């Protein structure tokens, strides 16, 4: 049987088709949850954000315009807006338990050192300002183009490039300090 496209599923969702909605969720849930987990750094925060996002998708399915943006871009935009709102309301609390623990540098070994550098990057990304963090994650984790990131964040492409450049500078500084 031919697989239905995201767009045809969205048309069905806008008519109240729960099965189509479940199929869409199955396709995009992991990627969105990955992004939400990195943004919030809290498992419960990520779950709540995902739930709010998908409920908004259900309610606003009729407003999706497939000719303008890809569905994944639209989904990321909804999630991003929800996240920014929750940060403004100070609703999300950083779960200290999920802050990556950096392995002891004296432990040595190539794998241990790589893990230590990765944990350092994870923590540095977590500490970035919201816009820079979102730009870095959307580009490098979610694989969106700068144009798509601009749509998600509601910025111009140049503003996105500027956020990315600032974020890279900060991350490089953190890596340099740890050497």
């Amino acid at each position, binding site marked *: 049987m031919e697989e239905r496209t995201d767009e045809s599923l969205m048309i069905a969702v806008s008519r109240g088709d729960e099965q189509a909605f479940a199929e869409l969720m199955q396709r995009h*849930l992991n990627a*969105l949850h990955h992004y939400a987990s990195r943004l919030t750094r809290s498992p419960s925060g990520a779950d709540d954000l995902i*739930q709010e996002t998908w409920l908004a998708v259900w309610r606003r399915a009729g407003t999706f315009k497939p000719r303008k943006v890809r569905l994944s871009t639209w989904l990321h935009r909804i999630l991003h807006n929800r996240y920014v709102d929750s940060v403004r309301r100070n609703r999300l609390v950083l779960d200290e338990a999920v802050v990556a623990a950096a392995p002891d540098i004296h432990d040595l070994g190539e794998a241990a050192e790589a893990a230590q550098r990765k944990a350092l990057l994870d923590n540095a990304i977590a500490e970035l300002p919201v816009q820079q963090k979102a730009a870095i994650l959307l580009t490098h984790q979610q694989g969106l183009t700068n144009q798509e990131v601009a749509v998600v964040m509601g910025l111009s492409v140049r503003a996105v490039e500027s956020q990315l450049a600032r974020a890279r500078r900060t*991350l*490089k500084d953190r890596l340099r300090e740890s050497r």
Partner: protein
Amino acid sequence: MNSPTDKQDHSSTEALDAELDQLLAGLAREPHEAPAHLASRVLANLPTNNPFADLLDWFTASYWRSAWTAALPLVFGFALGMTVQFEGDSYIDDLDMQALLYVEQIEEIEFDEI
């Protein structure tokens, strides 16, 4: 012409850039799976197309639960007051009856007698 220190700085910056690129590329390769319960949780919370069911959902939404809970003692007291007959009630009935009898007695008195 670049000094040896400049060259060293340049190669150090390039190495840092390469390391950052490598680390950032690793972000996309991270394995990640959403919790298994999450999809069913979202589906369970979808609003229905039935306005009455939506209204019921609105009343039973989590932010109302505390208000309902706080009102429970009041509801309980009201229900208790409607169903349970207290001893005190019969006392009031007796008093009413006595008052009625007294009024009847007054009516029986002929004013001429006074």
